[in-house]
């Protein structure tokens, strides 16, 4: 069966997932790097504000999963780790405030910084630390007249935004970076609400870290993969049934031509729902399957690194792990 050797399928039947009877690939394929090189294909599908979507074809599930896990928890990024609270008279508690500050996404490129080590001084060095301050005091607007009622009109600084954060260059950092290259990515994250007399005076320390230590260090908002869906129509479906069939799948998956015959327009974005099997007269009309080694990756960055950079960094992390263990074996 040459067709299956090109596209190994997993069939999604009504109550079970069935492997292709001709497909032994998962069980006893011999690993060889040259065969892998022949099989591996990458296709970039989409790269915009919403994230990067690409296809990784011809890999084992464990490899695809390793890349996903690495992107989530082992690619470094910068985040606020220490908060010195000199004054906080707002109603938000110190520890809650400190936690909120930690979750702010920073623009700083983690590749330009080093990890803090045991040896680095208490306050850090300019290579491993970024410092910020947040000084906000809420006051009543003197010029507000009595009939004004919105908070914006009667109070000054009653909302603390991430944009209030001010970067304090350490050592020579001022010559290398700018506020926009290391500051907060979003200026409109609401941190707290104040009332007249409330005040915040914080000094914040950001360091480089890994997602496995704390989720705030994860460079991605989401990174996931799914298998490419494949839908085949086994017979002609037309008229009312065609519309019923169309409603069983995600929008845009099933098309209907001018003769009111259903056809598979684009199975890629199907949710994989098995709704068709609810209609006994349609159940035999379709074969649902997924391509076993065709992974559709979607990577959404938090904003410090581009998604394609995050993927490459993730693969580099795995490569470095291997290298360090090989070196260790060779040293013995």
């Amino acid at each position, binding site marked *: 069966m040459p067709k299956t050797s090109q596209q190994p399928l997993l069939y999604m039947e009504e109550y079970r997932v069935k492997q292709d009877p001709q497909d032994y690939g998962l069980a006893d394929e011999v690993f060889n790097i040259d065969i892998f090189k022949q099989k*591996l294909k990458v296709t970039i599908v989409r790269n915009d504000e919403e994230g990067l979507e690409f296809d990784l074809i011809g890999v084992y599930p464990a490899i695809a999963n390793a890349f996903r896990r690495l992107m989530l928890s082992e690619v470094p990024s910068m985040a606020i780790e220490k908060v010195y609270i000199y004054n906080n008279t707002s109603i938000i508690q110190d520890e809650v405030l400190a936690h909120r500050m930690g979750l702010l996404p920073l623009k700083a490129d983690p590749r330009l910084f080093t990890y803090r080590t045991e040896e680095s001084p208490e306050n850090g060095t300019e290579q491993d630390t970024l410092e910020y301050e947040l000084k906000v005091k809420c006051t009543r607007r003197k010029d507000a007249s009595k009939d004004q009622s919105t908070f914006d009109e009667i109070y000054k600084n009653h909302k603390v935004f991430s944009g209030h954060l001010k970067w304090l260059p350490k050592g020579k950092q001022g010559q290398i970076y700018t506020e926009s290259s290391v500051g907060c990515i979003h200026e409109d994250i609401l941190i707290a609400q104040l009332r007249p007399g409330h005040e915040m005076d914080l000094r914040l320390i950001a360091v480089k870290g890994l997602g496995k230590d704390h989720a705030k260090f994860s460079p991605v908002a989401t990174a996931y993969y799914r298998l490419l869906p494949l839908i085949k129509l086994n017979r002609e479906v037309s008229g009312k049934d065609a519309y019923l069939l169309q409603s069983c799948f995600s929008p845009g998956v099933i098309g209907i031509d001018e003769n009111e015959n259903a056809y598979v327009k684009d199975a890629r974005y199907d949710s994989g729902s098995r709704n068709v099997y609810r209609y006994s007269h349609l159940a035999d009309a379709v074969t649902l399957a997924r391509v076993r080694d065709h992974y559709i990756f979607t990577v959404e960055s938090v904003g410090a690194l581009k998604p394609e950079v995050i993927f490459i960094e993730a693969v580099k992390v795995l490569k470095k792990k291997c290298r360090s263990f090989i070196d260790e074996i060779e040293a013995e």
Partner: protein
Amino acid sequence: MGALAELAGDEKNGEGSRTFVFTNEGHTLGNALKTIIARYPEVDFVGYTIPHPTEQKLHFRIQSHRERAIDLLKRGLEDLEALCDHTIDTFQTEMNNFNATTTVENT
């Protein structure tokens, strides 16, 4: 660094059977490496376990009667490294092509 060690108890079983202990590693490396080493014809058994979820330790077992376990482990790591290199290269070329075509479309 000393992140790789061997578990005692295999002295009588020859060089083909070993349990290696990786510190500060988990399922990410363990499962990826396992799938590769499991596909070598010389290997009789390969498996891994994380004995305790709060201990950052990975026990990696290899059994073979044709080759030394340490050599198989090294080969596995080298193959995984080569796999990473090739993935980076392929991804980078595709990304460059993609960027080239999309900038043409936008202008």
